């Protein structure tokens, strides 16, 4: 059976990472930015899992790492969304450009 080579997986994960970063930088909606962050974290997850699976199959460190990253991403998202809700209350918008009272 043919396995998808590691390179392909890594290319996908790298693309995901940069798409995530790009999304973080250009999208204006806070929720979308949060999704961009998830993209970044997931690309990391893919990295860990794939590397573990392909390169170091006798240990499970990569897998565990991925597992914890997922959990933490969830925690992060929850706190972030809680704050976004508060932002919406205070600013009546979740456009990131408007959340810039403090500068210079």
């Amino acid at each position: 059976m043919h396995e998808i080579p590691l390179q392909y997986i890594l290319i996908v994960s790298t693309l995901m990472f940069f798409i995530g970063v790009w999304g973080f930088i250009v999208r204006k909606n806070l929720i979308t930015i949060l999704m961009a962050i998830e993209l970044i974290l997931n690309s990391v997850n893919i990295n860990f899992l794939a590397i573990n699976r392909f390169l170091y199959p006798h240990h499970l460190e990569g897998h565990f790492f991925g597992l914890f990253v997922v959990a933490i991403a969830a925690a992060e998202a929850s706190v972030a969304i809680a704050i976004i809700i508060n932002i919406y209350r205070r600013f009546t918008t979740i456009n990131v450009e408007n959340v810039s009272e403090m500068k210079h």
Partner: protein
Amino acid sequence: MDLSQFFIMRHEVLLLAVIILILLMEIFVGKANRKAIIPVSIGLFLLSTLAGFLPAESGQLFGDMYRTNGLIVSMKNILNIGVLIVMLLSAEWLRKEENLDKVSEYYLIMLSTLVGMFYMISSGDFLMFYLGLELASIPMAALAAYDKFRNSSAEAGIKFIFSSALSSGVLLYGLSMIYASTGSIYFTEVAAHMGEQPLQVLGFIFFLAGMGFKISLVPFHFWTADVYEGAPISVTSYLSVISKGAAIFIFSIVLFSVFPMLEPLWQELLYVLAILTMTLANLFAVRQNNIKRFLAFSSIAQAGFILLGIMGGPHLGLTTVVYFILVYVFTNLGAFGVAISISDKTGKENINDYNGLYKTNPMLSLTMMLALFSLAGIPPVAGFFGKFFLFTSAASKGYYILVLIAVLNATISLYYYLRVVKAMFIEKSDHPIAPFRSSLSTRMALALCVAGTFAVGFISWIYEYLYDMTYLLFIF
């Protein structure tokens, strides 16, 4: 592995106990007695702090995921002292009506970030490190956004958590590269397999950027000022001292224990980052008017100076950094303490508002002046010793030019510290801050800071003790 081995996690265990007790209080204490939570929490934390000073032993747990030794214990103790001061300082603010019903949340969140930092410092692999890091960061966002009814607080929270998430993403990405190239996430094994392969170096740079965010090095620092300004001032003090201190601790530990092979590389990188950080932060700071923002940039600049210390190597450098953080805890919290006290009483947070403060509140002004002089590195206060050792540390590797730039930056920093001194002592004001008497807890905290600021410099065995401890770092 028997149960007694858990005692080498004494700091974390005690802290968790305190957290659980506070949680219980939250459940069982009625509305009328909520004020009592404050002293009890502080008391409990004081106990755990004191217990932290009991003799400690080196060791590791969970298959080397967790490790501890004399130096790490000292670091935790330093953080404990800092948190104790922050708790004392924030008591007055928490006692306010609008904060009373979320008092225990404040403590809970803050102490859980502390637990995160402890695990982070004690981590023996990147997983534990990452867990600790996130445990220290995510609740921090909640703390920053603690003041629900203030726009800036919410803004601070969102800026913090998003920036933090981005930086963790970058850091993790770097870790995945390191994992790919070394096949392990354990510090010892990673260190053993570390070479100068491009992938490893790339991973290291990503890792460095992630840590740079935590320590707020230029150009990863932009969140700092906004978050510091927006967050409640007690939280700001916590952020600027404790969480930065913890990040620097683990950063230096990781540099020395995981990436010694890359030392020539990271020396170069730190060289550049240090110059950038000091210089730009100083330039940012020169014209700030908000005291929190001002202290934010000042703390960024201090981070730049600390990099000089790290460059001095695993013994001299590490000792110096830990020592400096100790000094910094007393010093910066002293400065924040005064700002907190004034902010609590009057709501004023601008440097202009401090005009003529000495006439009305001499003790506060003197404390502030001492703290600022210490930050600027003026003798006889501890900051002088801290800075001097930082410079010594960098010079020990022959970085004289870097030291020169750093000292010149220290001179610039003196300029803006003196601006505050000038406001308090020299400027006249038509509406100076009225004389007031701070609460007992604030005064205790400030007294602690002042005492620390004076004592740490002159008592040389602290430095010696830390130096001896650095030799334990690599023995588990």
